[in-house]
């Protein structure tokens, strides 16, 4: 019996060690009064020093939201959310945005450092973290500009000056509302209307921070842009708002990463992301989502209810969504493309991993409006433990979308015998002049593959990771190099203890 107890203790340790981002940062914070009311909305707007039009816009959204009902069509189960039991705004109390990196509280800098996100530009440039690196290697190292969002505020944005030289605007959305109101007014909610859905409308009322990117005509953004979202404060929701505009002939690649501390309660993350691509523009948007998934029994974890949509407004425009979803107790998101411009292209590459008691209902919508529009969907779902993983997707070809083409491939991998994989593809086609292909497979991580790999010397965990990486390879190839390596590690950690 002693041995059994020790084993149980070992396993427990393993479980809590698995999520290495589960720490909390001790920093003084200021929060909005608990609950949602007109007062809360006014509080947030005042905190952000917003112009009147923005406050009015929020209030209108709040009124609409009161009339709406929470949707229940997704294949996920959770107790009813008490919207009055959430804090809608939390900021480190030393002030919202810091003028210089030196003003950022050291606890927060240390927090981001611990997460592997360096916020000092010279460190990013020289790669001081790895002392062995030579100057030549550092030069070759791709640089990434970071907007770091801590709870409800953006605490630092790196490389802003250098990007401004190229004409690229990269700042938090709160700053953009103040500094570039004309651009924000023109594009905000132009892709996801205020009344789009329950969670998007809620976001309009209480959104806190996120990133604003504007790439002018003909500019190829000189570096990767990224936002790192960190939820720290207890009992607080995060309402991210991101807006990316790529003008004619421009190109930008953007990455987002997300983590949160381990908490027993469920935290709500309701984000809205809008992308606009004009003629011949291209936006590549990658996500590595690793919110705290809750414990083995489904206690705690983030509810990730997100609306992401791209408008391929111009002809020959292109948007690629690539996502690796390993975290969150519940993921509910469908990064979509409206293919409005003729010859525009939408792509969706997804890996969704669920383990323990996690639930994911994710996929994409490809709305073909323009002629000769093309879309490609590659979805890889991996279910382990007692989790449920659903791919839900819509391919809609409108009457004028002659010559439209779609290719969809949905593969599901099951590990163990208590998890579920579901595929729900919706297809609508209103023109005879379109071509659609759909392929779907469901496989079990095969005993013969595992044995084969182990006979060659790989232990069970490594063998599983190798097989899973093989399964998702097509998607990981779409990620920028540094992220692909991180994603591989993440998959391995997420699936630890799921076999045998």
């Amino acid at each position, binding site marked *: 019996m002693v041995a059994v107890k020790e084993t149980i203790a070992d396993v427990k340790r393993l479980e809590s060690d698995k999520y290495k981002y589960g720490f909390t940062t001790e920093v003084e914070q200021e929060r909005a009064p608990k609950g949602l009311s007109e007062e809360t909305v006014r509080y947030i707007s005042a905190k952000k020093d917003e112009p009147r039009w923005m406050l009015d816009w929020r209030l209108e959204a709040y009124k609409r939201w009161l009339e709406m009902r929470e949707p229940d069509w997704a294949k996920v189960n959770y107790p009813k959310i008490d919207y009055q039991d959430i804090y809608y705004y939390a900021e480190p109390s030393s002030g919202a945005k810091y003028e210089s990196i030196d003003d950022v509280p050291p606890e927060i800098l240390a927090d981001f450092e611990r997460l592997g996100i360096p916020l000092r530009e010279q460190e990013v440039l020289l790669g001081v973290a790895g002392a062995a690196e030579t100057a030549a290697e550092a030069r070759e190292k791709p640089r990434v500009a970071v907007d770091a969002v801590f709870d409800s505020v953006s605490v630092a944005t790196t490389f802003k000056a250098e990007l401004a030289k190229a004409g690229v605007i990269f700042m938090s959305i709160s700053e953009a509302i103040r500094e570039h109101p004309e651009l924000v007014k023109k594009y905000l909610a132009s892709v996801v209307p205020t009344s789009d859905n329950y969670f998007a409308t809620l976001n309009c009322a209480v959104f806190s921070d996120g990133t604003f990117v504007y790439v002018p005509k003909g500019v190829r953004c000189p570096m990767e842009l990224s936002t790192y979202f960190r939820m720290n404060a207890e009992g607080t929701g995060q309402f991210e708002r991101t807006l990316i505009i790529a003008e004619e002939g421009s190109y930008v690649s953007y990455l987002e990463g997300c983590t949160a501390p381990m908490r027993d309660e469920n935290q709500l993350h309701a984000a809205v992301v809008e992308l606009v691509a004009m003629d011949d523009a291209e936006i590549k948007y990658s996500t590595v989502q690793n919110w705290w998934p809750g414990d083995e029994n489904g206690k705690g974890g983030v509810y990730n209810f997100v609306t992401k949509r791209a408008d391929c407004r111009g002809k020959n425009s292109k948007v690629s969504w690539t996502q690796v979803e390993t975290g969150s107790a519940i993921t509910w998101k469908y990064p979509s493309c409206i293919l409005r411009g003729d010859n525009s292209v939408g792509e969706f590459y997804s890996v969704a991993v669920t383990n323990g008691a996690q639930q994911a209902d994710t996929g994409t919508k490809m709305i073909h409006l323009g002629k000769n529009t093309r879309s490609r969907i590659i979805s890889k779902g991996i279910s382990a433990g007692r989790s449920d993983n659903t791919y839900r997707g819509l391919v809609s070809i409108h009457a004028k979308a002659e010559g439209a083409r779609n290719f969809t491939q949905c593969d599901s991998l099951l590990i163990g015998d208590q998890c579920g994989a579901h595929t729900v593809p919706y297809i609508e086609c209103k023109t005879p002049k379109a071509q659609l292909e759909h392929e779907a497979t469901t496989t079990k991580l*095969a*005993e*013969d*593959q595992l*044995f*084969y*790999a*182990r*006979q*060659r*010397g*790989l*232990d*069970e965990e*490594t*063998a599983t990771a*190798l*097989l899973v*990486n*093989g*399964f*998702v*390879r*097509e998607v990981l190839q779409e990620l920028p190099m540094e992220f692909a390596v991180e994603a591989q590690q993440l998959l391995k950690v997420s699936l630890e203890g799921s076999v045998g």
Partner: protein
Amino acid sequence: MLEIKNLHASVGGDKPILKGLDLSVPKGEVHAIMGPNGSGKSTLSYVLTGRDGYEATDGTILYDGEDVAGMAPEERAAKGLFLSFQYPVEIPGVPTLTFMKEALNAQRRARGEDEMSAPDFMKTVREKAKLLNISGDMLKRPLNVGFSGGEKKRLEILQAAVLEPRFLILDETDSGLDIDALKVVSDGVNALRSPERGMLVITHYQRLLDHISPDVVHVMSDGKIVASGGPELAKELEAEGYDKYVRAA
């Protein structure tokens, strides 16, 4: 080197397949096991390498004087036991080179050795692939996916050549091979013969033994070794069939 005594094993927990098997293969020798279908040849290969569901219920498997019966497959692999599969398994999305490098370095780590550097690994693989007529293009493709039977068997032998096991079990390596492929694979196996290495060649037919000549031939029937002899025993079986031994068992 390999000492099997009174080995009993069942599949899936209840069905006895091996019923008191004795076998001894000294270092540097090649032994062949021949037997009709259903005599337990493949089961033996899985019991020796530790596949789940193939448990030894009695007896011992001594490898270099150590009982390996309770060890995990990867532990046995690191100790140098290698099985060339009758039906090599497809591993989608994992390039052959990546797979072999991961396997080699996992074994090295388990033995407390340094990992092999990428350039050294590439050099080793290229040299050995050449002997087996395996192209660079094949090595980049996912392991065994869409490969012909002959290609798969050649890749099994390449893996053995790269991993340098101390004991090889070849399970029906000749199945699915045409004459030319049989020649290439046999040459690959013969190149691995060494005074330091033992081999167990499991086969249904004599034809593989024309290329890989064994030191000792055993006949297996109903989960036991029922006869042993020199290479001439294989010829006799080819001419007269297994009837005599099946009846004897």
